[in-house]
């Protein structure tokens, strides 16, 4: 079974966990430790300081790396700037197959998914079928507030593949399940799921297409996501689809 991690970060970031920054080499070592074949990585600099610089620095770092794929970080500063369509075009041309937004991030975070302000950006992303990963970095933001906003985006842009990652999803499962029910284009990254039987619930009730394997490296190790999926009461085909198939399909649809 091949594993493809959608949620990994490299480069200098604030408050590094273990006194150093994860490099390309460390990320690859971590992947080897857990038997993860490929990963979609973003540069912390693009999230915490400067999108443009961080995104292009990432391309340099990943040059020649076959197992690591670049994810670009976009921020609300793109609103009103005439360049975002060019950014998306450039990203697509340079092999970027995922863009990310950070909800509540210190410098480049979203405070809300207001379609009046962000609609043009999402429309441009939708037209290129570029997968968009929203991740929850802000302690002040509750999932109960975020899920209705995600539903608005998914409904307004039904061809836009939307992925969500959060450190912990528990009591909010009811509205999460509504998202799966209403929105074919909504996906959940698996390191978010620590509730018992939720992996199986999502697959059996809403379909295997909604889950995408991720680790949350370097905040989390790869063990929890890998081992949760290994023990899940799913068929081998379903596990493989979550482990790598769904992400690969999303990447191939980018145009």
């Amino acid at each position, binding site marked *: 079974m091949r594993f493809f991690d959608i949620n990994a970060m490299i480069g200098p970031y604030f408050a590094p*966990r*273990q006194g150093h920054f994860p490099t390309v080499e460390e990320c690859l070592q971590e992947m080897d430790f*857990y*038997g993860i074949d490929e990963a979609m990585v973003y540069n912390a600099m693009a999230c915490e300081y400067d999108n443009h610089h961080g995104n292009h620095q990432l391309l340099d770092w990943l040059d020649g790396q076959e197992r690591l794929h670049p994810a670009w970080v976009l921020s609300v500063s793109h609103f009103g700037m005439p360049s975002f369509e060019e950014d998306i075009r450039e990203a697509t041309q340079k092999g970027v197959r995922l863009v990310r937004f950070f909800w509540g991030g210190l410098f480049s975070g979203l405070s809300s998914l207001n379609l009046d302000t962000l609609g043009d950006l999402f429309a441009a992303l939708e037209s290129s079928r570029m997968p968009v990963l929203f991740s929850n970095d802000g302690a002040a933001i509750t999932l109960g507030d975020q899920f209705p906003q995600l539903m608005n985006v998914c409904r307004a842009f039904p061809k836009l593949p939307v992925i969500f990652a959060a*450190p*912990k999803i*528990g*009591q909010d*499962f*009811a509205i999460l*399940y509504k998202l799966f029910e209403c929105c074919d284009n909504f996906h959940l990254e698996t390191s978010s*799921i*620590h*509730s*018992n*039987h*939720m*992996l199986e*619930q999502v697959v059996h009730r809403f379909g295997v297409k909604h889950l995408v394997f991720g680790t949350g*490296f*370097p*905040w*989390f*190790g*790869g*063990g*929890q*996501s*890998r*081992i*949760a999926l*290994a*023990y*899940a*009461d799913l068929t081998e085909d379903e596990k493989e689809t979550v482990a790598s198939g769904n992400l690969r399909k999303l990447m191939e649809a980018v145009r």
Partner: protein
Amino acid sequence: MTERRILDAALLGRTLDDEFVVDCHGHIDHWKLMSGIDCDVDSMIADMDRVGIDVLCINKWNCPDIFQSNTDVANALKKYPGRFVAYATTQPCLGKQATLDELKRCFDELGFSGIKIHNAYETLPMRDMWYLPEFQEAMDVIWSFAADRRCSLLCHWLVPEEVLKRYPEAQFIIAHSLGIPHYANTYAPYPNAYFDTAASTNLRGNLEHFVALVGAERILYGSDMPYANPAYRLGQVVGTRVPDADMRKIVGGNMARLLNLEIPGKYR
């Protein structure tokens, strides 16, 4: 190279048949609240068997009637002998006599082995409760009882350090503590403090940090099942750089020692 047989088995989803696994933190409750799946004792056993958990330490805490809760736990012990170890749920605001009577019922009549104390019943963090006279008497009963019986207390959350000093015969398991690295420093000086891995904020490197500071002998695998997926929580523990010799202590050996459980011959 560090031995990692346990990790390799878990990465393949193999039941950990070669390891004695004791989960120090579980519940029997209606947990539809968390994933939409209802759990009963039978489904919990199935979950334990899937991963290879031999023994699960349980209590029932989310029902406000603690007397009924403890009776329900006793029924689980009877239904699956040897698979569960029971913590008595306490509610100090009921006062010292009711607290003592319930602890005696649980230990002397129902076969319980430990005590669970949870601040959800009290509206205050345990550290603050300790300083309120109306709680202090009942809590003194709990600490004294645990010391007399030489038993473990699963404490959600912080236990005042003076309690750890005053009752060295009791073993205090600091629930969810692997998620908060500075607890290793706070509680390291007290040999009767133990650290539970059941934490959603159990980040990469936390387990190695605790092992370095307090040693593997004081860390206990806990899942918080059925709320949390025991496999996910196992992944946070065995999916680390801690070698197998220490990992065996963490996933079962340490809790077996605290509970005086005999490790079955096939695991030795």
